[in-house]
């Protein structure tokens, strides 16, 4: 029974990875289990300079979901390469380096440094983070800008580039096709859905940043729909995410058209979720007599 998943730049043992921003750089989870079990690791967003991020509260709980407005706190790409990536190397897991920025140059520089480090397998362009004021969002909602950014980063990056799509758009298919044309090697979808919670005791938004990104089971039907739609239009590899909490959820994403999946919020509910799902998926495939997990992805989806 085969779980192996070969995506551009990411030769994964299995189709499971933690999602960007929900796993830091793995240090905390390395104390809990052996990270080498993971198919890949999507790293926390890197920016050119260190960032503190937004003020707190940065998270709020919503029905079957949560809002976050961390604001891309990170030590900057230089520190990430020197301290985090060199440490992660020991686990021999292909890494997907999430990159954010406010200008195209930011993205180019950060992506280039990461690619040149030789320590990551692929770049994930975060053009869809709803929690930072300075640009970033426009790249994720305007197909032309998204395409331009993609092709510029492709030019400076020696490794494959995935584009992480925003669900906060009228047509995610337009975005997907635009970045495909611009040379994207794969898609990650979905990033969080922009949302807000108001504190009914004060009448004011609960998050210091006012809006935040909705993640968790609540958004799963949105993610499934978008992946299904995009899969009708492109053969690009898709890393699917949005509310995965169980083996059945993973299977649902594969059927929708994802080639691999990322698990975000569920790491907070259960820090052991990734290895548990990897084991569970193996079990599932055995029970269903699925010889290769990718038979699930491809066979059922092609016809509309």
């Amino acid at each position, binding site marked *: 029974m085969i779980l192996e998943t070969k995506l551009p730049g990411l030769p994964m043992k299995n189709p499971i990875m933690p999602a960007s921003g929900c796993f830091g750089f793995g240090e905390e989870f390395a104390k809990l289990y052996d990270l080498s079990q993971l198919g890949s690791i999507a790293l926390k967003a890197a920016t050119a300079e260190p*960032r503190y991020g937004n003020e707190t509260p940065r998270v709020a709980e919503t029905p079957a979901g949560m809002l976050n407005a*961390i604001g891309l706190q990170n030590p900057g790409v230089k520190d990430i390469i020197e301290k985090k990536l060199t440490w992660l190397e020991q686990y021999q897991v292909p890494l997907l380096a999430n990159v954010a920025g406010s200008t195209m140059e930011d993205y180019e520089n950060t992506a280039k440094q990461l690619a040149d480090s030789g320590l990551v397998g692929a770049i994930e362009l975060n053009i869809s983070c709803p929690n930072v004021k300075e640009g970033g969002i426009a790249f994720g909602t305007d197909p032309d800008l998204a395409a331009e950014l993609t092709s510029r980063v492709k030019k400076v990056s020696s490794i494959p580039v995935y584009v992480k799509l925003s669900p906060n758009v009228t047509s995610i298919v337009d975005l997907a096709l635009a970045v495909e044309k611009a040379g994207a090697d794969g898609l990650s979808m979905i990033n969080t859905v922009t949302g807000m919670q108001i504190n009914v005791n004060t009448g004011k938004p609960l998050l210091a940043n006012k809006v935040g990104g909705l993640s968790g089971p609540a958004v799963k039907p949105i993610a499934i729909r978008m992946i299904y739609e995009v899969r009708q239009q492109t053969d690009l590899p898709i890393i699917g995410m949005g509310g995965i*909490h169980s083996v059945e959820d993973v299977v649902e994403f594969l059927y929708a058209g994802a080639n691999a999946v990322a698990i975000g919020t569920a790491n907070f509910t259960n820090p052991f979720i990734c290895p548990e799902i990897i084991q569970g998926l193996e079990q599932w495939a055995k029970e269903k007599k699925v010889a290769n997990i990718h038979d699930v992805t491809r066979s059922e989806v092609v016809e509309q």
Partner: protein
Amino acid sequence: MIKEEMRIRSNLPIAQHIFEMKLEGNIPEEVNQPGQFLHMKTTNQVTPLLRRPISICSNDKDKGQLTVIYRSGGQGTKCISEKKIGDTIDVLGPLGNGFNIENVNRTDTVVLAGGGIGVPPLYGLGLELKKKGIHVVSVLGFSTASATFYHDKFAELGEVFYCTMDGTEGHKGTVTDVMRRENISFDQLFACGPVPMLKSLEDTFPDAKGALSLEERMGCGIGACFACVCHVQDDPTGKDYRKVCSNGPVFPWREVALR
């Protein structure tokens, strides 16, 4: 840090909206400081989604039992309050760094300053201090008399001053008011409670030694998500930070910015 289904040995109201719960499992064995906390899943469902951070009030390694005291207010703590003896609850813990009492001298006087639901971890701290033979004075503030708890327990630790905002028990006013009015002196000050209380203590006793315990909304509880960061005092760049869950929740006075 362990994730386990702890067995509930008791779960009873001890004041208005306040419950005391005793839990059994392997986590107590791992606890190494008073002031560490648990991260509790309140149901088996995806709602409430997030775990709830609750301080360990007291811990008994030998029996494999610990006690938490919590306020049943929102959705998640309400679910916890509905659990019955014999039920289990999914707990991650012990988490964070608690009160370090290695630098407390045998001859020191320690004041435990607690506000509301910040009081419980101070009880466990008091037990440890008493074990070392240290002189403990407790100053406990609550909103009102019906919200107070653990009178006998704190009495066993030493002198206790109570205050309530409405004056229904002890002094009327805040913990800081009482400490000033009663001229309570200390060698070390340990505090847990709402930020305004901590801030007022810090302002009033700017040179205090000891530590305070902070609260912040959490995601992971283990240091990975950066939900719970706070600023550091004397940080001109504004970029330095501490994570309440993994660097704290207990910090030395004046390390982190209180806002």
